[in-house]
């Protein structure tokens, strides 16, 4: 098992920008505030291109600069070395921005643009943080945890 330390350095300022900008929202009352997340994810049967995938990296809210952008940079620089893995961009904040950032890599076999938000549904994965999913059986994937250790920093751990 290859272990890849996924270390994302978020400055406090970057963190604040992430939150302040992406969560600048008004007047909604009907859904709970929660960072809680289901531990597992059931991949839809008819979703093409995931048949032999063992690991999925789900990156929500890409498409603007900030700390999510750092995650995107990290992952994009490693696309070619990923095997049996999909990088899913979901709940995309800025599609044009993301397309510009991806460039030619938008057609990379590892990249999946989840414009229908299949990976960002109530009761499934709705984290505002990147997630790592690992296939355990059939179409069922298990979420791997990330951790936050240092003051002012977020360190995530992706295990392949």
């Amino acid at each position, binding site marked *: 098992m290859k272990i890849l330390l996924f270390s994302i350095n978020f*400055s*406090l*300022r970057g*963190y*604040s*920008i992430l*939150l*302040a*900008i*992406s*969560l*600048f*929202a*008004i*007047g*909604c*009352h*009907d*859904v*709970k*505030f*929660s*960072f809680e997340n289901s531990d597992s994810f059931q991949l839809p049967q008819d979703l093409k291109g995931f048949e032999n995938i063992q690991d999925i990296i789900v990156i*929500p*809210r890409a*498409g*603007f*600069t*900030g700390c999510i952008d750092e995650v995107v940079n990290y992952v994009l620089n490693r696309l070619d070395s990923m095997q049996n893995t999909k990088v899913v961009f*979901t*709940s*995309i*904040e*800025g*599609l*044009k*921005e993301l397309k*510009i*950032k991806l460039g030619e890599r938008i057609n990379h076999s590892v990249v999946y643009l989840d414009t*229908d*938000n299949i990976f*960002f*549904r*109530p009761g499934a994965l*709705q984290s*505002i943080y990147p997630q790592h999913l690992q296939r355990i059986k059939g179409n069922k994937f298990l979420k791997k945890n*990330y*951790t*936050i*250790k*240092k*003051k*002012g*920093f*977020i360190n995530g751990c992706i295990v392949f």
Partner: protein
Amino acid sequence: MKRAFLNTYLVYILWFLLVSSCYSIIKDDKELSLQKVGIHALALDSNSGHYHNSFGLIHSNNRIMSFFLNVHNYTIYINDWKTGAIVKKISILQNGPNSISGNPADGIFFNSKGEFFYYAENKYRLYRFQNAVPIAIYNVLNHGGSKENDKFDIPSISAMFPILSMGDSVFFLTSDISVYRVKDFTILNSLLKFQKQADTFSMKRLVPCPELYNRGNWGRTLGYQAYHIFNADSTKIFTSFGKYDSIVVTNISDLKRKTVYAGSRFFNMDKEVLISNVSDKDESDFETGVKYDFTHPVYFKLMYDPTNEKYYRMTQYAFPDNETIKKNKGEIRLGISYSFIVLDKNLQKIDEAILPDNTEYNMNHVFAREGMLLIAPLPKYQPYEDSLIFHKFQLKGL
């Protein structure tokens, strides 16, 4: 009989005063409002998205220009603010002497002479450009000592936290005051000024943090932000702290300060409950802090509109309940509303108006110009690929 008449008269007087005061309150509530009156569009080329960390306005020869840095191609785009057309693109030199060498920008800033500064936070370097040519590099750390030892936060540059310019000087002001937080939550008693004059930098402690930051912990991040502006016609810095009802006014020349009450009518920071657990050591504490940030009121950006000589202090003010993030159909929304406190040129509070729209907006792209508030929706709500759209709000009842 006479006495009864007098009593009746007094009762009427009291009743009149009571009704008048109530009417006054009601009138205040309804007097000032924000009304969406249209949109404002800036042209984008195919290489530019809808969100830019470094975005600002420049005043030049009676024209207003907007600028932003495209971080994908290291190009500064300048648009005519009135027509929206792109009038100039400045490609930043990435190779050669004094080049940015691929260091990503934290932000850029134009001064009144047309010079611009490019700040690479990852290297603590400030690059100075004239006519698109880099002419100097300043190492911020060399002038500020150790970040760790001195509790010195490297100033940042963005649309929310711009560099301030006054004459030949530029000022970086610390925007994140949480770096002054130590174990017992005591806030070290200053913000920092980082001043450039005649190609040298000096750093001084400038704006003290309000005492209420020493009462305890105010959440994770938002409460610890400080927003500064200059009034172009004065030598004063106006600072809006995230958790302080008043605005701090600091005179640059003699460092004399005063505070002016500019609080929201929807909350009172003196009555706010603090958070007890904000350790970053584990995930739950971190998230507790984040949740606190978005479920408690906070003051945001301070703006000045020279056209009508008004200040605007943005607030995050309404919290329907403590469970406010909406996660539905792939969207994240907060059950938060925003208001703008309007102050006259003497910082006398006029009133407060609620932002009426139900759109999610980009706080980095909020401007007060010509009596209007212009706010760009988040990228996912931008309707056109080739334009950056701002919604225009007019204050009614001023």
